[in-house]
């Protein structure tokens, strides 16, 4: 039997979460004694998935699937699962994968566990560790259904190289007009900039910045680090920054390698959403700010002095380590 993994791509190129999902699928397959089959839709170089452990890639090449469509993509994954007789399906935690997850679960009558952060705790029964209570805790969840779907949390298991011999085959799927009852008409996306979902580094700022006019230095810092920019909730509520930058319990979750919080107090709802980041740095004038209890490194100081220095020093560092 095989473990099926859905690998996301954007304009033909695999996303980083695709490699992480395949790495995870490989681990699950090892534990179950199965092989790994990846499903890719309109991707350009499928053989690269072998590097992360895919034994086989089913490649769907279909013009109607050029844009992501949750129903049609869920159908394609379901068809692949049925044709492979796969009972374990791995997806990522991107907005797209989360969009299609419920549809896929209903179609396959499968138990679905999202936000999984580690290799299975056991395979018989299948128990996985996931975040719960918006990162304030973890649950060990047993999937009791015959078919099961695991959603791997971004940047949690990591990308692991295996170098497996991979076969790529074409896979034709049925696309129905009625899958397009919800149709994309426009995509408005920042290009050439890291997104909060997949950035290694996220630079985030809060009300301590005092006004939207002061974000120039935050963007510059993000630029130097190749980072995505984020903000606390009040900052987006005040309209200083777009809603899409709001991180925390009611915003986007962050699971980056490095999270830099500038002028953010560290309210429980904020910390819940960012705690999965590996290294956290706080810059705040108030040594009593709760964020200092959650951070790895802290600078007690005025953002308007510390951030420009940090930008200069990082530029020097980058020049030396280029």
């Amino acid at each position, binding site marked *: 039997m095989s473990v099926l993994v859905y690998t996301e791509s954007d304009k033909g190129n695999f996303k980083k979460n695709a490699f992480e999902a395949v790495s995870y699928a490989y681990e699950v397959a090892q534990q179950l004694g199965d092989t790994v089959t990846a499903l890719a839709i309109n991707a350009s170089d499928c053989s690269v998935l072998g590097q992360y452990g895919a034994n086989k890639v089913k490649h769907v090449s279909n013009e109607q699937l050029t844009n992501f469509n949750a129903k049609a993509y869920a159908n394609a994954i379901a068809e692949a699962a049925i044709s492979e007789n796969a009972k374990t399906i791995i997806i990522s935690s991107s907005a797209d994968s989360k969009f299609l997850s*419920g549809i896929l679960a209903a179609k396959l009558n499968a138990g679905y566990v999202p936000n999984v952060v580690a290799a299975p705790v056991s395979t018989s029964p299948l128990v996985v560790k996931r975040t719960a209570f918006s990162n304030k805790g973890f649950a060990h969840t*047993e999937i009791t259904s015959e078919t099961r779907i695991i959603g791997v949390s971004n940047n949690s298991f990591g990308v692991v190289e295996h170098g497996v011999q991979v076969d790529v085959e074409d896979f034709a799927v049925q696309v129905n007009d009625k899958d397009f009852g919800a149709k994309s008409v426009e995509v408005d996306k920042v290009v050439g900039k890291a997104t909060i979902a997949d950035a290694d580094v996220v630079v985030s700022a809060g009300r301590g910045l005092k006004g939207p006019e002061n974000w120039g230095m935050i963007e510059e810092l993000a630029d130097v680090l190749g980072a995505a920019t984020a903000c606390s909730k009040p900052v987006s509520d005040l309209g200083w920054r777009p809603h899409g930058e709001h991180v925390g319990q009611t915003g986007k979750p962050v699971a980056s390698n*490095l999270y830099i919080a500038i002028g953010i107090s560290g309210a429980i709802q904020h910390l819940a959403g960012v705690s999965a980041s590996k290294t956290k740095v706080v810059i705040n004038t108030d040594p009593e700010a709760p964020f200092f209890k959650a951070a790895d490194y802290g*600078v007690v100081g005025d953002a308007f002095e510390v951030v420009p220095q940090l930008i200069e020093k990082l530029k020097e560092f980058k020049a030396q380590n280029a």
Partner: protein
Amino acid sequence: MKILVCISNVPDTTSKINFTEGDTKFDTNGVQFVINPNDEFGLTRAMWFKEKQGATVHVATVGGAQTEPTIRKALAIGADEAIRINAEPTDGFFVARQLAEVAKNGGYDLIIAGRESIDYNGGMVPGIIATLLDMNFVNTCVSLEIEGTDAKAVREIDGGNETIATSLPLVIGGQKGLVEESDLRIPNMRGIMMARKKALHVVEATDAPTMTADVKFEKPAAKGPVKLVDAGNIDELISLLHNEAKAI
């Protein structure tokens, strides 16, 4: 237009999370329960449709009698009727099946759920309902306009937004953005009085299997103390981030 808003009864966002019974249960001791924030945005949008477009708004939850204050609050905010499906919400699939069952017979044009509940973060309820009822579906919805049976929705994607043209009957997974923060309503006295007279139907659950079970909970490992770096010594911060944390 008939709208059903699905409401999850969750611990208030400021709650400290603890576990009990050998870390197998969430400890509700001292925890205050509220309308799931993602659902509250949806409910508030539904109130807009009610006031501006004459929609009827029902709310539904899956839960025991202890969840009634939360749905009463939704009635006090302005929903017309409430339905409580009397069962423990054991997993997302089970909850979605219960809600779909209720929705099937209710003739709803629009079903609004949250993109996820902030307790178990399952995120599957709206997608499963939409699929079981064969309705259109938009997740992480941050804007929704309806004209006749046409709907224009904006959903949040990684790194931006996508505008989607769709039509009723429709299910959305809502979140912040659907309405402004300042549009959220605190029930007033009149609303609370009126809510007491509104119908709260209690219906029995239909048979449905559960697919997953939480067998154990853990709290995040305690963190070591923060390392403070002097504001005049940013070189040290960079060195720590590079050599120790290997983060840059």
